[in-house]
């Protein structure tokens, strides 16, 4: 097991190097001159030269890549050409918001996806099954950003059930930062005002972000449950008089969860990409929002940094998924 994890981590490191080359290459195919762009329209030739030197844009590509890579190893993602901020400092500011949102969303999608899948399979061809199937088909087709806007329109603007966007009301001070997740910080410092406010802000964006994942997890878990429930071992357990509930919740579900886990890993990646949309719709101050703001101005360092960080996160999540197989199915061997 240890060997397997080490091997996987090594392979992740190699992929990460490849990823950084791809991202770096992408950033340099830009037709415009980034130095000119950063200097502004009225800049003199000297000013452009200064910027070019400052960001090392005058050196050969390979040297630029090597110095970029050297920076990456030290956790230095370079500086934004537009705001001149250190990108890593910005990311540190925005990353917790994104992860808080993604964790809430993926937990929601996993819990309810599995639940709906099981219910739909157990109550096959009843209204529960039909509505779960209808939802699982439309859920993946609905444009996330549009769903967000519609919910804002209905639940926030019309019925005032939720705030329109943001992480906290402007009148409320951020909690003392310990984990930098507002929900957790509010909870452990006993700051109920913050907790409640943060919760009411996160519900809509998390719901929207989890929607496609929830739909596809429901769908695959239903299909797997249906298949497993017809297997001989389930019949055998029934014959032995094990309660229906225990069979479903423990023995059948555990078998059905293996393909579901694959889907969860896949959907997690989509969800990371989806933060770009959801954070834009809900003014959520995360790195998706940050990347969009930078990309619109062809400000490249932030976009590269976000791509590398979320790519790494996705790879680690996949490693976790692969280890989950062994947990669910003792026959799985890691080599």
């Amino acid at each position, binding site marked *: 097991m240890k060997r397997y994890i080490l091997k996987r981590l090594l392979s992740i490191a190699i992929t990460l190097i490849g990823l950084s080359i791809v991202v770096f290459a992408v950033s340099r195919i830009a037709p415009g001159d980034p130095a000119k762009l950063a200097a502004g329209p009225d800049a003199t030739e000297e000013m452009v030269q200064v910027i070019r030197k400052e960001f090392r844009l005058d050196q050969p590509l390979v040297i630029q890549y090597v110095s970029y890579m050297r920076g990456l190893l030290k956790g230095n993602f370079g500086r934004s050409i537009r705001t001149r901020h250190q990108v890593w400092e910005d990311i540190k500011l925005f990353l917790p918001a994104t992860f808080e949102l993604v964790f809430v969303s993926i937990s929601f999608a996993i819990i309810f996806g599995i639940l709906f899948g099981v219910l739909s399979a157990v109550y096959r061809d009843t209204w529960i099954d039909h509505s779960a199937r209808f939802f699982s088909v439309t859920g993946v087709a609905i444009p996330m950003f549009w769903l967000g806007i519609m919910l804002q*329109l209905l639940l926030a603007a019309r019925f005032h059930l939720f705030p329109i966007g943001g992480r906290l009301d402007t009148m409320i001070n951020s909690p003392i930062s310990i984990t930098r997740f507002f929900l957790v910080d509010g909870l452990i410092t006993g700051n109920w005002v913050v907790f409640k406010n943060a919760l009411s802000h996160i519900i809509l964006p998390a719901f929207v972000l989890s929607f496609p994942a929830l739909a596809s997890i429901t769908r695959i878990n239903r299909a797997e449950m249906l298949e497993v429930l017809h297997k001989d071992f389930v019949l055998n357990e029934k014959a032995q008089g094990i309660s229906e509930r225990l069979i479903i919740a423990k023995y059948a579900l555990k078998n059905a969860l293996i393909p579901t886990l694959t889907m969860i890993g896949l959907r997690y990646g989509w969800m990371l990409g989806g933060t770009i949309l959801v954070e834009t719709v809900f003014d959520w101050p995360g790195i998706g929002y940050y990347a969009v703001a930078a990309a619109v101005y062809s*400000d490249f360092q932030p976009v590269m940094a976000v791509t590398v960080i979320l790519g790494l996160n996705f790879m680690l999540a996949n490693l976790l998924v692969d280890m989950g197989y062994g947990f669910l199915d003792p026959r799985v061997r890691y080599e």
Partner: protein
Amino acid sequence: MNSTNPTNPINSTWTRWKRERESQIRSLKLTVYTLSRSPLSVIGFCFVLVFLVIALIGPWIITYPGDIKGAIHMDQKLRPPSPSHPFGTDEVGRDIYSRVIIGTGLSLQIGLIIIFVAMGIGVPLGIIAGYFGGWVNEFIMRITDIFLSIPGLLLALAIVGALGPGIKNAMLALSIVWWPGYVRLVQGKTLSLREESFVEAAKSIGASKLRIVFNHILPNCTSPIIVKASMDMGMAILFAANLGFIGVGAQPPIPEWGAMISTGRNYLPDHWWMATFPGLAILITVLGFNLLGDGLRDVLDPQSRI
């Protein structure tokens, strides 16, 4: 009556053609029959059909052709849905119905271009990797894995960010994001086909590699490719709308659905129709292609699950 007349030259070619293709026609009939038995597939098929028809005849059924190119009628701006403007008008008085209809044709183009470019890159690479194996396979699959390790929308954003916003760059970016999926699919399929006895047989009677690839491997890859293309068609349209929405895809006044929603969002909550109708168009289109792709998969490629 004429169809059985063997002296008619056109009909005799037709019957000969029919006889030669008998097995294909039969399997096509079976596909159609099985599809028609599944209500969801029929709904999907109908949605896709409506989408295609609207995309093709769009220019003839719109009521305000000038509004597509960015005409301005400030006296008509922000009108709610009414008989003369069924979907209302936007911030400069353009008819949203006309723009959504023309957006259909645009989406069809976007989807087709992305899928064909992705297939054009992915299918040959997949066959090469799967058929030749060894370090070629290792090399191609490594690169594929790198591309698959980045959330697609994020990579597309990065590429468009580098190339500059615009509909052409968005399509290019999405094609770059999409090809690795086809490599994976075709490589896996080729790997298993390579071991089949009919490929072995062809090899043993001295068929060239090209002949094996084109006559034996590729035809057997078409079903999964068709299924994936049908599913991807909807997803590609959705992703293009995503990019349009965040402002790096199609730029106003191009009547692209995502960009229209992006503009409409600024006029909420009072002018709800601006964002609502283009969104419904996306939903129905993507839903149609997904349902159709699902049905096709059950018929053409029953082994695959996800």
